[in-house]
């Protein structure tokens, strides 16, 4: 009887520890750790100038070496707290992108237009440059 009681108590303590630990993970995950949304992005360097106004991806079309192209992203904070937004890029496009603003705060329901410019160098080889822009956001 005593052995069973001890076993139950240990199990209960074990469950309690798991409960507290995971509860804390949950709280930290939601409140402290950042979330990320991504937008695919691409441009082409060729002899032509070309538009690709895809509304689901940030496509810059085609530019000549030494050219540049800009498009805007609108970001809206629909949450009821201030968030801080950081943008970064991945892929072989990442060294050819400039954001008009980075590491900024959005108030609840605030919208902001961010212009993303893709550029190429004079001596850049023809080809496709692709990747994604990560929009990382967390509570202030």
């Amino acid at each position: 009887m005593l052995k069973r009681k001890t076993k139950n108590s240990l199990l209960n303590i074990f469950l309690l520890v798991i409960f507290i630990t995971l509860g804390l993970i949950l709280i930290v995950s939601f409140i402290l750790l950042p979330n990320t949304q991504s937008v695919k992005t691409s441009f082409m360097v060729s002899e032509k100038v070309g538009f690709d106004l895809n509304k689901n991806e940030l496509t810059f079309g085609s530019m000549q070496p030494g050219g540049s192209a800009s498009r805007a992203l609108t970001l809206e904070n629909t949450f009821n707290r201030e968030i801080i937004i950081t943008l970064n890029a991945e892929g072989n496009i990442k060294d050819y992108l400039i954001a008009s603003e980075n590491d900024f705060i959005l108030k609840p329901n605030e919208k902001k237009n961010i212009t993303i410019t893709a550029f190429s160098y004079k001596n850049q080889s023809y080809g496709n440059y692709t990747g994604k822009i990560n929009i990382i956001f967390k509570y202030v």
Partner: protein
Amino acid sequence: MDKIKKRQDIWQLTAYFAIIIIIISLFVVGIKLTGHVVNSVINVSIEQRAYINFTFDEINFGPGSITPGNSNATIDTLGNVINGNWTPVFEGFTVENLGNVNVSLDLKTNQNAASFLGGQNPSYLYNVTNFESGSCIFGTINFGEWYDVNTTEDGTRICSIFQPSDSQDTIRVDVRLVIPADASLGIKSDIFTAIGTAV
């Protein structure tokens, strides 16, 4: 006996609650690991407009001078060289609609004739033609006619509906310069900006 049962019920309830928390936590951790956000707190929308810059020195006339005795020389990307010794250039810019939506097209430059060339009565002109027949179905200027460049923010609307279909999606922009004999010396370069907006 009741006391023990009650205590057991509390622990059982705690256990069930812990299991629920475990499931939610694993779900949250899964979201973090995959980057898949279920409950987004920001809306991201992509503007259906693009500004593409291209440099005018891409059409490289190279060095040249005005034939002595003339007040100006005219050169363009249609191969014309009048009163000068520049190498004829036969290629203008081509602009293509690579996407799958109709686009309106505006054109502007950074400089006008005076700032670009200097001197008395300079001209800095462009003309637009369909490189592929029917590419622009609602032109807002006369295609094939020369116009002064426009340095205003919005530029000049050159086409209201620029089509995306593969065989009808390319226009050509040619440039003409009238260079006065007293134009400023040096290498000239300017930036054209084509502004495409989905319609």
